């Protein structure tokens, strides 16, 4: 993952400082027209060839994540409960459809916390399990779009969260800010990815992929902005609880310095 981590850092540098990011967010707020319903890609709404492609891209992450989880369970049984907590957090957040400024609803993903605790590929597996549950029992998302949705929510989102957190942590930013931005940007990037996936599958006849992309970004991203903020705050909140009650586990994961007393 070292190499991937470095690429992520480069990307973050290219995207500019977080001040710029705030302005970009504000820009999106002002420019994007007032439409939106959001969430995962619906069953049958991705042509077969794209379903196969995104599944193929998601599978390596799932395999790696599976072995990561196995390693945690076997070698660090103390962390099993915390792993369960990361999964439970995804379960809760992805079940909550929350109203947004666009007059429609979407839900957070919750994968940022686990990505920070256990690394991104572990969350690929957990994300995939939650998506499977929702596809089979809730007709939300779908089996044919499971690969694509796993790629956006289980691969890109956690990778971004993980990268942002470690990038900011290494530059000495306060931990709450690193956590907040990691979870928020992970959430947003999930839905940016969804927009890309739909735009690639449905390029506009006149405007091509770019035109479609702006359309889908308009649907997915604006609704997601307040939810991303909420997810960032909730992630900081849960992490605060962990620093109080599970400081040993966090030390084991090198997320708290040794003998650090949280105030």
């Amino acid at each position, binding site marked *: 993952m070292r190499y991937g981590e470095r690429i992520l850092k480069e990307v973050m540098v290219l995207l500019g400082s977080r001040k710029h990011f705030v302005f970009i967010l504000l820009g999106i707020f002002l420019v994007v027209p007032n439409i*939106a*319903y959001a*969430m995962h*890609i*619906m*069953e*049958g*709404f991705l*042509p077969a060839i794209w379903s196969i492609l995104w599944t193929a891209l998601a599978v390596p992450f799932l395999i790696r994540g599976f072995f990561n989880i196995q390693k945690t369970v076997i070698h660090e049984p103390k962390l099993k*409960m*915390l792993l*369960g*907590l990361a*999964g*439970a*957090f995804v*379960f*809760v957040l992805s*079940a*909550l*459809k*929350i*109203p947004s*400024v666009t*007059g*429609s*609803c*979407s*839900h957070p993903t919750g994968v940022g916390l686990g990505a920070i605790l256990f690394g991104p590929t572990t969350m690929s597996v957990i994300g995939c399990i939650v998506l499977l549950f*929702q596809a089979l*029992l*809730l*007709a939300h998302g*779908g*089996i*044919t779009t499971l690969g694509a949705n796993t790629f956006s929510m289980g691969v890109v989102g956690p990778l971004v969260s993980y990268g942002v957190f470690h990038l900011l942590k290494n530059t000495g930013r306060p*931990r*709450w800010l690193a956590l907040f931005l990691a979870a928020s940007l992970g959430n947003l990037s999930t839905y940016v990815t969804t927009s890309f996936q739909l735009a690639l599958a*449905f*390029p*506009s006849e006149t405007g091509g992929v770019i035109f479609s992309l702006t*359309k*889908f970004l308009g649907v*997915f991203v604006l609704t997601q902005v*307040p939810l991303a*903020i*909420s997810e960032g*705050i*909730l992630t*900081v*909140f849960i992490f*605060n*609880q*962990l620093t*109080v*009650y*599970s*400081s040993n586990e966090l030390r084991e994961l090198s997320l708290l310095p040794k003998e650090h007393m*949280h*105030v």
Partner: protein
Amino acid sequence: MYKKHSFLKKPILNLFLLTVVIILTAAPLFVLQGAEFTGTDDQAKKVIGELNAGYQPWFSSLWEPPGKEIESLLFVLQAAVGAGFIGYYIGFARGKRDAEKQ
């Protein structure tokens, strides 16, 4: 990390964080009077219809919850299972920490 702001004692800070989330969530309900908040994926379907009018979904859900109420039941179940485990974890971790202190 909150050492510098001693007025932000932990419980108060956490309460503040949750309040912000609640405000963020509730604000649209008050600001956007008359919006339907029908949170489905219909809008994306509509955009697909505009971009590619001939597209027919080639697969449909294996099973769909019969009706809105059942669907919300299952969503609530999902959230309850998750929240239940989080509560269990915090209680468990707290008990463990207190036991270790003694």
